[in-house]
C-alpha cells in the first residue's frame, strides 16, 4: 500500500496538517487500515525533499505545520493512479513457503497444518465480514476495504483447499516421504524470483 500516494491524494484536495492527514486516511479506509503519525511525518519529509509537496516555511516540524501539493506532486499522483500495479513477479508468500517446506519435512502432518491456517484465515475473514455487516450502505470506503481483505483471504483459503485436495489424491506412500520437491532446472517461476 502506498502511503506516499495516499498522502498526495489527500493533499490534492487542499492544504492539510500532518495529524489531519492521519485522521483522514483512516476515515477514508473505513478505519480498517491505520497509520501512525510518525509514518505520516516521515512520508511528508520525503515528499517535500522530492519536490512533490511544500510546507509553510515558518514554524517547526509538528502539528501546526501545513502542507500542500505541488504541480509536480499532482503529476506524480496522476501517473501513479492510471497503470495497474506491477504484479508480474509474484510476492514471496510465507504461507506458500511454509506448506512447501512442510511437504518435505518428515513427520509433519500437512493436513493439520493446512487446517490450522485455514481456521485462522477464516477467523480474520469473519472479522471483516462482521465489520461489513455492521456498516451502513453509504459507508462505501469501509465496505470496499473490507471486501478487498475478504477477497484476498478467500483466495488464500481456496489455495489451501486446492492444495489439500491435491494431496488427498496422492497415494499414501507418496505422502509418506517422497513428495517431489526437488527443484528441476529451468522452472520459469524460479527464474522470476
Amino acid at each position, binding site marked *: 500500500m502506498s502511503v506516499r500516494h495516499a498522502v498526495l491524494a489527500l493533499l490534492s484536495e487542499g492544504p492539510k496538517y500532518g495529524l489531519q492527514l492521519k485522521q483522514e486516511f483512516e476515515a477514508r479506509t473505513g478505519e480498517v487500515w491505520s497509520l501512525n503519525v510518525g509514518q505520516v511525518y516521515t512520508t511528508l519529509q520525503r515528499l517535500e525533499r522530492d519536490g512533490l509537496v511544500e510546507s509553510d516555511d515558518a514554524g517547526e516540524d509538528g502539528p501546526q505545520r501545513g502542507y500542500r501539493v505541488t504541480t509536480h506532486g499532482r503529476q506524480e499522483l496522476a501517473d501513479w493512479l492510471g497503470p495497474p500495479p506491477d504484479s508480474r513477479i509474484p510476492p514471496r508468500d510465507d504461507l506458500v513457503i511454509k506448506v512447501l517446506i512442510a511437504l518435505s519435512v518428515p513427520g509433519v502432518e500437512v493436513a493439520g497444518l493446512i487446517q490450522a491456517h485455514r481456521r485462522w484465515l477464516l*477467523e480474520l475473514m469473519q472479522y471483516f465480514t462482521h465489520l461489513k455487516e455492521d456498516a451502513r450502505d453509504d459507508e462505501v470506503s469501509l465496505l470496499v476495504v473490507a471486501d478487498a481483505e475478504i477477497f484476498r483471504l478467500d483466495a488464500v483459503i481456496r489455495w489451501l483447499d486446492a492444495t489439500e485436495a491435491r494431496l488427498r489424491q496422492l497415494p499414501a506412500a507418496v505422502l509418506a516421504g517422497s513428495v517431489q520437491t526437488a527443484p528441476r532446472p529451468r522452472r520459469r517461476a524460479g527464474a522470476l524470483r
Partner: protein
Amino acid sequence: MTPVLELEQASKSYGEGHTLVHALSDVDLAVSAGELVAVMGPSGSGKSTLLTIAGTLEEPTSGRVLIGGADVSGLSSNDRARLRRRSIGYVFQSLNLLAGLTATENVSLPLELDGTRAGRARVLAREALDRLDLGDRAGHYPDELSGGEAQRVAIARAIVGNRRLVLADEPTGALDSINGESVMRLLRAACKTGVAGVVVTHDAQLASWADRVVFVRDGRVVDHTSRAAGVESLLAPSP
C-alpha cells in the same frame, strides 16, 4: 438455555458389507436461538448429510437429534412431519419454488399445508415478503423473478410463520457476490430475531457470515473457529 438443535454423536452410513460408506461419524453440534453456524467442507465431506439429519429428513444410523431439547427419534412419522412444517425452514441451492404459484403462494404454501387458513397464510406470506423487500414482486411467478429475487422468495418461505430453525444448503447458489451477500444478510437478520441457523457450504466467504464455522472432513467435525481469537488486537497499528 436449551439449544434449538443438538446432534449427539450422530452417525450415518449407507450400504452394507464392502459397500458400506460412513457419510457422517460421531458428530456433536449444538446451535442456539439467535446463532448462525456454518458447516464448511469440500464435496463429499458429509456436510449435506449433516443437514438432512439435522432437518429430520433422514434418521441417523446411531446417535441422537434433538430439536428444542426433544429427541426426534421418539416421534411418530406424523409428528416428525409436523415438526418439519412448523419449526424448520429449508433453503436449498435448487430453490424448489413451484412454477405454477406466485411468490406469495409459494411462501404461504407450507403454512396452508399445516392447517393455517388460506387468508391468514397469505397475510403472513406478504409480511415475510415485505421484510425481504419483495412486496412489489408478491404476485409474480418464479420465472418472472431475477435469480436474486427467487432466492429471497425461497428464504421468505423458510422463515415464514414461527420457524425456530433454518437450514440452508449452499443458499447463494450461482448468485454473484453482491446478491450472495444480500442472501447471507437476510439469513443473519432472521437469526437475530431468535431463529437458529445452519448453513452448509464449501465457500469461505459465505461461511464467514456465521458466528461459528465448523469444519468437516470425511464425515467428521475436525475443527471450528472461535470468536475469542483476538483478531482485533492483531489488526491494530504497529507502534
